[in-house]
């Protein structure tokens, strides 16, 4: 590939001509140099069209030659929407144009241009209305016309990273003002983070003349020498959030694809410079129409000749400088129209690229048209801090209203005003010094230089090049009554595209103002929603830090085929292959289950009983030392919230257990009541969930097994049902044993110091081998408790289930002075029409209605199955259900609708327990 447009070496060029790079462009071989952007390499080879536009599929070329160039968005490998005018070339890149089929040159969807006069603002809203049945077909065609790059289902997630920074001053923008502010702040003793969106510091100095380059070198050298300044290039401050929490997207970062830097800065200096604003006229989107800054970047940074024969329409010094650069680059200057002298730009014409330009006084042939009509102030970071920028008609741009900015936010550079380079650097120096001390001392405002207000010519052109919105569309919107700035933007989608309004917003507001006869200030202000620059989901997400919890017995579980169950943070064994066999082992012999995730709170102090009385619905004042009691907690609305057993280990020492999923919430709940309602109570709460490894040993032979590993007296008279003991288990001191029966069997729950969990677990299995001991998982435990009719909070209850609907009638003690939820439970107890938790037996014992099956009567839903399983013990299905009170009497037959549509019958059982309703087995 030749490079006919490549210029000889330029003083400020950033390309390294000693390092040629090969890459692919639409499947063809292409080349450039290290330091080139994708666009500059292609432009050097004479390419002028880089994409097809959003709606009309018009060919688009270079406009700004920087990140926000709307026509230079490409696909690179599996990465969509790469900003080709910013992204540096890398060897082997597979670059393809977007929105073009079959090729960039012949795009069939360009036919949209022919019907363009019908595709104006609101087109979609006005058609495809009837017949309505055809709309889905239209819609699928419309979707195929959607723009943008392609996702790849196989794309790797990639490596991203985050970093936290605490800094005195963060300077957003590394142009001359940003550098000067950073230097002044550092001189004043501040630590500084200087953030620049380009690959090098310097801003517009980088593409300036000899004087600018000299200043640039001096400032860069001083910044490099300042130890207190850290520089991030190819990085952009994407958002300013409360208390100067600033997000910086580092697009080039060592070792990772991208890095999100989160900085808490005492002061923020906003110095992004100015964005050159395009001009609206017919043909303003033709390849070959460029902004003066685009032209200067191409020539001076990349040594690319932007065209062969140029016309210019300029209203400021940036335009003059661009014309000078063009002359120097050997581009023929066809005509320079000076808007300051009243010359107008009428329209531009050409097919596939610029051919001719009509000015108010002449028409000239040209393949390049340079416009320099004014600036947009990127006030985004100040706006995010609450600033409402104001329009200065004389200067023809918005300015932040610095006086209203909250503490710690400063603006400098072109954003703040005008002046010579020295004056701007002087202002920035004062700002940097003030930012270091968080004062406003010594900062005099910059003047606003007059600038002609130029937004559009006498012909209609594109206002938003990302979205293909024309000035005619804006006029239509306003005429139809969408005449507020926000409504018109939404109706036309102007400013809603990938450049986020950076190029379009001021022209849009100015035109709406003109169309409605209101002033710009009255019409609206520039609104900037974060992020300031688009940011990848990968960078925002960073690495995944979602910890999981395993019990100390996990090595054994893994080695024995446990099927993992994700239960919140915990990964638990669901079963070891055959849950029914695990159930039978517990019912007939002995089984052990790892219940480490059960929440455990160590409660100490003289007022623990008062606390328990307050939080549980039942009574605790008379719980003796060495005793354990079941308790249920309700919230103040009477809804059941958690349950568990609590044992009294000593006079002022209790151990509370909670559900596994409720462990964190109950801890917080306990602290909340203690701290906010009863700070006078002396109770010390220590969460000990993971301090202990917990094992439930269940089954008729559990006593025999435990006896082999402990010196605690297990005789039923001494250590009866619902008692607690502490002692040595498998040689481990300070173990807690409580005799409880969630499974309905004789069982001992062991809580042993966590580090010994695996040891105790393996000891139990070894010592119990001859008893047939078997590990069981969560599924077997669920079956066992269901057979026994024990509820699970959150499964057999829901967000409205109060105590009396959870079968807790026996536990709720309304004669207590106070407990959480008491009034609602009193009122619920006075009524009899609330749902009840019941046991169900299906008439056909082999049918297991799936959980959530609805119970229906006369076309109404009267309940639902909350738990159901085939019982390995009874060889029939067992269920719990929430059921309307009128049907809840034992023996009542109800209709259960299965998910497959069948209706089956079930009878309400006498009590909740299907196995051992008298509770003899757990009390032996």
């Amino acid at each position, binding site marked *: 590939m030749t490079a006919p447009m490549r210029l000889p070496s330029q003083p400020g060029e950033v390309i390294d001509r000693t390092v040629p790079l090969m890459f692919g462009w639409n499947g063809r071989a292409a080349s450039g140099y290290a330091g080139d952007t994708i666009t500059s390499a292609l432009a050097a080879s004479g390419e002028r069209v880089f994409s097809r536009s959003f709606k009309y599929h018009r060919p688009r070329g270079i406009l700004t030659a920087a990140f926000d160039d709307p026509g230079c968005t490409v696909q690179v490998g599996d990465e969509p929407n790469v900003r080709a005018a910013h992204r540096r070339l890398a060897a082997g890149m597979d670059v393809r144009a977007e929105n073009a089929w079959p090729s960039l040159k012949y795009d069939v969807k360009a036919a949209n241009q022919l019907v363009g006069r019908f595709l104006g603002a609101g087109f979609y809203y006005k058609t495809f209305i009837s017949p309505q049945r055809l709309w889905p077909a239209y819609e699928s065609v419309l979707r195929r016309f959607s723009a943008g790059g392609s996702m790849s289902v196989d794309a790797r997630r990639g490596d991203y990273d985050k970093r936290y920074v605490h800094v005195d001053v963060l300077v957003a923008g590394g142009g001359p003002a940003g550098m000067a502010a950073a230097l002044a702040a550092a001189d004043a003793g501040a630590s500084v983070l200087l953030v620049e969106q380009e690959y090098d510091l310097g801003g517009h100095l980088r593409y300036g003349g000899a004087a600018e380059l000299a200043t640039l070198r001096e400032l860069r050298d001083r910044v490099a020498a300042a130890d207190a300044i850290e520089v991030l290039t190819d990085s952009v401050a994407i958002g300013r959030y409360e208390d100067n929490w600033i997000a910086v997207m580092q697009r080039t970062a060592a070792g990772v694809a991208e890095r999100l830097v989160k900085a808490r800065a005492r002061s923020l200096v906003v110095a992004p410079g100015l964005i050159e604003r395009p001009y609206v006229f017919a043909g303003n989107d033709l390849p070959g129409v460029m902004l003066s800054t685009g032209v200067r970047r191409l020539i001076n940074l990349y040594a690319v000749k932007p065209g062969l024969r140029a016309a210019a329409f300029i209203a400021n010094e940036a335009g003059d400088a661009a014309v000078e650069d063009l002359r120097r680059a050997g581009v023929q200057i066809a005509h320079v129209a000076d808007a300051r002298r009243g010359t107008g730009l009428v329209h531009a014409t050409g097919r596939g690229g610029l051919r001719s330009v009509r000015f108010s006084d002449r028409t000239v042939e040209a393949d390049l048209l340079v416009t320099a009509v004014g600036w947009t102030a990127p006030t985004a970071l100040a706006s995010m801090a609450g600033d409402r920028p104001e329009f200065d008609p004389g200067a023809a741009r918005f300015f932040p209203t610095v006086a209203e900015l909250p503490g710690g936010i400063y603006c400098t550079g072109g954003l703040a005003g005008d002046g010579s380079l020295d004056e701007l650097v002087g202002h920035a120096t004062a700002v940097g010094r003030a930012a270091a001390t968080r004062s406003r001392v010594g900062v005099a405002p910059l003047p606003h230089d007059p600038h002609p207000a130029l937004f559009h010519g006498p012909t209609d052109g594109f206002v938003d090049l990302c979205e293909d919105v024309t000035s005619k569309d804006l006029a239509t919107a306003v005429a139809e009554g969408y005449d507020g700035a926000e409504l018109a933007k939404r109706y036309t989608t102007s400013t809603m595209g990938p450049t986020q309004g950076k190029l379009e917003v001021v022209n849009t507001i100015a035109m709406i103002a003109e169309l409605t006869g209101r002033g710009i200030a009255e019409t609206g202000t520039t609104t900037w929603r974060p992020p300031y620059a688009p940011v990848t989901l990968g960078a925002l997400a960073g690495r995944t830090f979602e910890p999981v919890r395993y019990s100390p017995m996990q090595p054994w579980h893994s080695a024995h085929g446990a099927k993992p169950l994700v239960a919140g943070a915990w990964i638990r064994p669901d079963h070891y292959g055959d849950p029914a066999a695990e159930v039978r082992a517990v019912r007939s012999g002995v089984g052990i289950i790892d219940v480490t995730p059960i929440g455990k709170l160590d409660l100490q102090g003289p007022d623990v009983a008062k606390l328990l009385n307050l939080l549980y619905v039942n009574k605790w004042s008379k719980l003796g030392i060495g005793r354990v009691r079941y308790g249920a907690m309700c919230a103040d609305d009477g809804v059941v919230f958690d349950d568990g057993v609590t044992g009294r280990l000593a006079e002022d020492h209790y151990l509370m257990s909670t559900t596994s999923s409720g462990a964190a919430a109950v801890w917080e709940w306990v602290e909340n009541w203690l701290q906010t309602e009863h*700070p006078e109570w002396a109770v010390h709460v220590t969460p000990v969930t993971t301090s202990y490894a917990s094992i439930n040993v269940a089954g008729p032979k559990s006593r025999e097994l435990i006896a082999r590993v402990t010196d605690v007296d297990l005789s039923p008279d001494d250590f009866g049902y619902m008692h607690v003991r502490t002692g040595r288990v498998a040689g481990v001191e300070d173990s807690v044993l409580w005799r409880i029966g969630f499974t309905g069997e004789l069982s001992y729950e062991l809580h042993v110091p966590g580090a010994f969990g695996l040891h105790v677990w393996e000891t139990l299995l070894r010592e119990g081998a001859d008893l047939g001991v078997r590990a069981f998982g969560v599924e077997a435990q669920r079956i066992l408790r269901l057979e026994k009719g024990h509820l699970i909070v959150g499964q057999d209850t829901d967000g409205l289930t109060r105590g009396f609907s959870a079968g807790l009638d026996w536990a709720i003690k309304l004669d207590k002075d*106070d407990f959480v939820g008491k009034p609602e439970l009193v009122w619920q107890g006075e009524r009899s029409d609330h749902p009840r938790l019941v046991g169900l037996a299906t008439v056909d014992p082999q049918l297991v209605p799936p959980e959530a099956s609805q119970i229906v009567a006369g076309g109404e839903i009267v309940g639902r199955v909350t738990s159901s399983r085939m019982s390995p013990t009874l060889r029939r299905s067992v269920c719990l259900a929430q059921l309307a009170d009128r049907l809840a009497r034992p023996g009542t037959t109800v209709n259960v609708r299965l998910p497959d549509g069948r209706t089956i019958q079930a009878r309400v059982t006498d009590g909740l327990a299907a196995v051992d309703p008298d509770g003899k087995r757990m009390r032996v």
Partner: protein
Amino acid sequence: MMLLPCPWCGPRNVTEFAYRGENIARPDPNTADKATWRDYLYYRSNRAGWEREGWFHRAGCRQFFSIERNRTTNETRGVGTPDGAGDAAHSGDSR
């Protein structure tokens, strides 16, 4: 990210805290009628201005405290501990 001044730990990222809502006094459970009790359960003043709220420093000192926050601007002032130290206006928040 907003900073919240914990009375024990100083200003910390708000993500360390759990919001407990407006401070509402719990009525006497033995005398409150349904309207009073359900007002306490469900009704909120939801002011678009300064409000005294309960917060919990979940990822810090695990203390509950009350603070005034302007619910339109998220500015804060008048931090106090729930037991009254530095704050006489606190009333228990128990939800």
